[in-house]
């Protein structure tokens, strides 16, 4: 019986060993060497790479940019996503149509989304500039992605537009799982809207919503494609995130050792988030 289980698990175990486990272990190995991406001698350098990474101002500024990206995007996705879900839980004409429309940003490929917003932000002919100028909100066209002051926020908006609907769809499913009788009972008991929300709706909402937020945080922390397409980390490194730094060190500068050590620091932080996520799913009984 147990033997059969393991035989059936064998293909998955092979994938996890050879395509995930082995590269991960090898990344640890590479991070202690001065390996180049292509050719050259490979020497053991001990913890030198880590010392250089952790001692560099660039690393910490990239970490700070990543944290700001995560905080701004995920907070906005949470706020807009929850607001939209509460709205779609009401009865109104066109509700089903609006709910179906929310699939669109989610289904749009990330690179297409990034490209679309790049065109919208275009400094010479973009729609964003045109809209703000024609409504009198700004006087002259600006380079939203070309100025360090606005680039990160502009990228965040593009990310929020694509990903808030994930929060909405998850929260909406949770809202609709609240039994109608509970609502009516609370109304009969004379509970106002706010106390009804707190006592009846919130207990159903909090679990799924936490799952959505942690999921988005893990994803946002890894962010690469939207930034690569929209700004390549610029201007003046103002949108360079940890994943971009790994890409730059390992592939643009060919310093595989340094790149691997940055990646490992990132894995450590991710692991904490992932452990939190798995703990959440476990508490909600996903794996019973």
């Amino acid at each position, binding site marked *: 019986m147990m033997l059969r*289980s393991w035989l059936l698990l064998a*293909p*998955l175990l092979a*994938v*996890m060993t050879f*395509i*995930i486990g082995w*590269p*991960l272990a090898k*990344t640890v190995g*590479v991070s202690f060497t001065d390996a180049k991406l292509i050719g050259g001698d490979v020497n053991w350098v001990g913890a030198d790479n880590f010392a250089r990474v952790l001692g560099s101002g660039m690393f910490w500024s990239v970490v700070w940019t990543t944290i700001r990206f995560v905080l701004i995007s995920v907070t906005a996705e949470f706020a807009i996503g929850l*607001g939209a879900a509460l*709205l779609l839980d009401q009865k109104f004409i066109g*509700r089903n149509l*609006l709910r179906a*429309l929310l*699939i*669109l*940003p*989610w*289904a749009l*490929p990330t*690179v*297409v989304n*990034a*490209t*679309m*917003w790049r*065109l919208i932000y275009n400094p010479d*002919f973009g*729609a964003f500039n*045109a809209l703000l*100028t024609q409504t009198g909100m700004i006087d002259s066209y600006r380079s939203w992605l070309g100025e360090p002051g606005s680039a990160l926020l502009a990228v965040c908006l593009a990310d929020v*537009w694509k990903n808030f609907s994930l929060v909405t*769809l*998850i929260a909406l*499913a949770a809202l609709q799982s609240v039994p109608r009788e509970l*609502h009516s009972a609370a109304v009969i008991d004379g509970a106002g809207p706010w106390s009804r929300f707190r006592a009846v709706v919130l207990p159903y909402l909090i*679990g*799924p919503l936490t*799952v*959505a937020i942690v*999921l988005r945080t893990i994803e946002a922390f890894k962010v*690469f*494609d939207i930034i*690569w397409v929209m700004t*390549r980390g610029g201007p003046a490194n103002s949108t360079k995130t940890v994943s971009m730094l*790994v*890409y730059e060190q390992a592939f643009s500068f060919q310093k595989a050792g340094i790149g*691997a050590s*940055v*990646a490992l620091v*990132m*894995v450590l932080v*991710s692991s904490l988030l*992932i452990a939190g*996520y798995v703990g959440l*799913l476990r508490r909600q009984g*996903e794996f*019973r």
Partner: protein
Amino acid sequence: MERRSLPFSIFIYVSAVILGVFVLAPLVWLLIMSISDTNDLTTLPLRWLPQTLDLHRYAQIVSLAENGVGIAFLIALKNSLAVATIASLGGLAVAIPAAWSVSRAHGRLNFSLYVVVATYMLPPVALVVPMYFALSAMGALNSVFSLAIVYLSILAPFTTWLLKSNFDHVPAEIEQAAMIDGARLDQILRRITLPLARPALTTAGLFAFLLAWDEFFYALLFTAKDSKTLPVFIADLAGGRVADYGLIATAGVMASLPPVLIGFFLQKSLVSGLTAGGVKG
């Protein structure tokens, strides 16, 4: 339900309109760019509606003219279809036996699912350098097939996770009855379990397809010229010297059609897939 007051009703409709405009405006603009004459897109003040309907870019993007953008687009389209199909079918082939095995072990193998979830969420930068070394040493860079194998690192854990809870809903009693009648394991899976779980298999396969269709990081690093996938092609087009914004928009619209259609098809099972079983939808 309580009756709504008039101001609250107005508030609901105003919010609904704002949300609808927020979602649709960028997409509508992408469509308009793809059918506008280049002059309309580069006048100041900007003309929001094109003066003439210009569909030439849709012909251009699929034209077979030599060294044209159409050829490059069609090759990328073919590569994306191939990678996503191979990787999602491969993911299912790996995940079906694993998910069934965990589901029928009544909790004894559940620890393996935690490992599965954790690996699926690892940042790709943690694996990419050794993968590059290995593919380069084997001469397997720039191949659609290698990229599909790399994608298994995401899709195999993901589909296993998605399928496990679905197999839990297939009653084990039917399988046991067949076993008593002398059916072999492969017969039971093929004739009983998989047909009963067919909707879940379709859903898991389509989700895997979407993930592969969307993937950019590995594709950017492991493909070149004739093995580029659509996301890499579009990023190239947008980052290159193409001055025709409308053409970039057209490529974006075309690349979005398959995932948008799949997205609408998946509407009902979307929530369970978004969290890969984390929330029962």
